[in-house]
């Protein structure tokens, strides 16, 4: 960790930190009211990782949905109308 003084003020860090805190979903925010910046950063990293995993998981599920789509099912018709294909 750098020992050089950064040019941003402590106030700005606090503002950014509370902004980050407000981005965490309620379930993760519970114990975050008076935590250090480093704890907040860790929680933020954990949250981003979980979002990445969700994108990965949902991509697989969408792929599965595509493969089970039969051409004549009402479900396929609805999806086709949404996709405009």
């Amino acid at each position, binding site marked *: 960790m*750098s*020992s*050089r003084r950064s040019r941003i003020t402590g106030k700005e860090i606090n503002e950014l930190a509370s902004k*980050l805190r407000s981005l965490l979903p309620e379930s993760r925010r519970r114990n975050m009211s008076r935590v250090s910046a480093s704890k907040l950063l860790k929680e933020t990293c954990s949250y*981003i990782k979980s979002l990445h995993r*969700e994108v990965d998981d*949902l991509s697989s599920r969408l792929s599965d949905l595509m493969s089970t789509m039969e051409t004549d099912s009402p479900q396929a018709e609805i999806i086709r109308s949404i996709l405009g294909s």
Partner: protein
Amino acid sequence: MDSENSACGNPNPNPTLGPSKLMLAFRFLRALSLVHRTTPASSRTCRGRRIERAAYASMAYSAGTGRGWSRAVLRRLHHRARRRAVAPRRLSTTAGNRAEALRQLVPGGAGMDYCTLLEETADYIKCLSMQVELMQGIVDSSSSYGP
């Protein structure tokens, strides 16, 4: 250029307004449609990966080029440098290596100063969760018509 990238259209002309959910949905669904038409049914994993790339592509296009993270995502997608080990990173010298873990998670984070990194993180999280919400919505609406 990847077909799913070109399906996403031109970058958002109004990045300051933030991506609209409708534009995001439109781009993503268009890309999904393309993936469906052009991927053989047999390659399930390949299609899953293409859908994932379409997700990040439409996310980044919707955010526009005014954001460091979206530019980084688009660069990465256009170069398709997946096989390469982690690309050489330019570490910021003014803020040191603070928040190293976060820099690895936010696209383009390695070269940013600390302040910018936190702002980019906030925007990235907002867009990511919007994309997840969108994909979950598509899955839910497709599933509710099932047997």
